């Protein structure tokens, strides 16, 4: 079931017709979790989302715990198979049918993880870790391999001297650069970054962000950034999708969504971010905790905590992600077309 395709904003329109690199159509991922001795209950990590990434885009995916954003990353990279819906990469479905094609896709979709300390094997040198995708997918060995790895380390401004060090000898920022070097080693078409700077200090983060922006342009990467840090997403991404309990609740250009949020959750989320400035207004607080993906509320998943809930319609009918006049898409009954009476 397709929604109307999003109109790319002026920033992403290209000379030729925009090419869709990745599309998710009504993708869902349910896990069966044991509840009691015999029963299982479904954990709806992702519950029907539609997304489209154009070539060259940098798109952000934001949400809190339980929003499903990390699961989306794992679905795209093939670590999970969707329970429902389809994922298409370059027009053809994922996962690919033959093993060879699957291996090929592995070289085209790559990921940088959140925790640089944990994403490098502590017993392998930086050289061995960065060279790994090259060893798996290419025939480069020996001197040629070393040259290529050194080239990559230069690209990420890590310095060749770190080639043969172990991860524990590097700082967080350096480790993250090494992970980025590994991820771009095969010139992937799609790069997914899962909280790439949340484990880093502010001053280091600034360098990495600046570097990522530059790299994206230089290598013409299509990037999907997953983060809970909204300011970082603002800096890096042209478009953003906000997720809540497995669904996309609002989607649009970053400027529009962050400066003029439409969905009540997005509004609270943005207001809750503490800004580094004096004298901030008191944020409207949400009651209670994020409900668990094991017990997603009926209808709109946000309705129990929504300060602007409309009552019966929010409790029974899940809102669809619909275009809003501003260009964003919002999934909220507040913006439903009034039902003609008659």
């Amino acid at each position, binding site marked *: 079931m397709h929604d109307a395709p999003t109109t790319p904003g002026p920033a992403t329109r290209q000379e030729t017709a925009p090419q869709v690199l990745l599309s998710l159509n009504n993708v869902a991922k349910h896990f069966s979790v044991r509840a009691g001795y015999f029963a299982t209950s479904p954990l709806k990590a992702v519950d029907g989302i539609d997304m489209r990434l154009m070539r060259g885009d940098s798109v952000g995916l934001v949400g809190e715990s339980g929003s499903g954003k990390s699961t989306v990353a794992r679905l795209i990279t093939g670590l999970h198979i969707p329970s429902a819906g389809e994922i298409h990469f370059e027009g053809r479905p994922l996962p690919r049918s033959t093993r060879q094609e699957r291996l090929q896709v*592995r070289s085209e979709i790559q990921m940088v993880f959140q925790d640089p300390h*944990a*994403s490098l094997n502590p017993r392998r*040198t930086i050289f061995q870790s960065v060279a*790994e*995708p090259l060893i798996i997918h290419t025939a480069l060995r020996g001197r040629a391999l070393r040259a290529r790895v050194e080239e990559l380390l230069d690209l990420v401004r890590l310095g*060749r001297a770190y080639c043969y060090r*172990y991860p524990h000898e590097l700082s967080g920022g350096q480790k993250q650069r090494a992970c980025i070097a590994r991820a771009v080693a095969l010139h992937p078409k799609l790069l997914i970054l899962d909280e790439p700077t949340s484990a880093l200090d502010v001053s280091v983060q600034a360098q990495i962000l600046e570097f990522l922006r530059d790299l994206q342009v230089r290598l013409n990467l299509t990037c999907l950034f997953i983060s809970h840090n909204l300011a970082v997403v603002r800096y890096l991404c042209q478009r953003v999708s906000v997720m809540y309990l497995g669904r996309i609740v609002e989607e649009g250009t970053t400027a529009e969504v962050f400066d003029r949020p439409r969905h009540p959750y997005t509004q609270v989320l943005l207001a809750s971010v503490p800004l580094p400035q004096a004298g901030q207004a008191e944020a409207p607080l949400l009651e209670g905790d994020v409900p668990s993906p094991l017990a997603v509320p009926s209808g709109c998943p946000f309705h129990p905590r929504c300060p602007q809930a409309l009552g019966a319609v929010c409790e029974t009918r899940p809102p669809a992600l619909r275009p809003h006049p501003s260009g964003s898409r919002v999934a909220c009954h507040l913006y439903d077309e009034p039902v003609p009476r008659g």
Partner: protein
Amino acid sequence: MTEAGERPPALAAPDTWRERHTAGLRQIRLYAHTYARSFSALLGLVLVLGFLLLAVIGPWIVPYPGDATGEVHMDRKLLAPGAEHWFGTDEVGNDLLTRVVVGTRLSLTIALVITGVASVIGVPLGMVAGLKGGWLREVIMRTTDVFLSVPGLVLAIAIVAAMGPGVINSVIALSLVWWPGYVRLIESKTLALKNELYIEAARISGASTARIVFVHLLPNCLSPILVKASMDMGMAILAAASLGFIGLGAQPPAPEWGALISIGRNYLPTWWWYVTFPGLAIYLAVLGFNLMGDGLRDVFDPRSRGR
């Protein structure tokens, strides 16, 4: 550590073997230093090295090589420890020192084979169980549980009794009893490791399961395997000696320590040396391996590094 935010200075990539492996060498030095800080670990190391040395060169340096195979010298029987026979002689006149030293090679070889076979069987099974999960894991783990539910020595005795006494059979029996321990250890370690981010990263890079096992999992499993193997050597020596003691292991005239004690028991208390020296050998060997294993465990455990 500096952050190379700007273009790094034109440092040449390290080229010599030494430069490339500086980090590894430092790590080894750190391990050695941590190990050496513990007196008991050093004692263990000395004991183990001593026994290894004896096992290798023993048969060439013993004073009465013929006695190892049981030449009979009734004129020299049951002599007390003295200048000519440091450990005394046994009931057929064999020099006990010779027999104990030659027995070192026998015992250590038996222990090595048992530990080796057990780990070669147990480690891959444990890894498969940890990685694959599902029914395969259930089958492997439940089989392991069955073996572990019977006391090891009892099971070994039963197997040897069925197969007939002898060194080979006792080695087979003990290996069969030993491998489940490795499965347990490696299965839990693999379960913990397989969710590590770097394994996920390897998978996303396209690594095959085989590559993940050999390149990523095994090296990280090595330290617990080493620690366990070291302690197991000691326990295996003891187990082999126990089998020998009840007559199910090496048969006379092979100078296996347990067998020696078994015969020597009859000569207590007057001819005390017959039991004492083989017993001392067992004690020191097991102690050595245990202390060394303990020391290794402390070295590999990052928390006890005491930084």
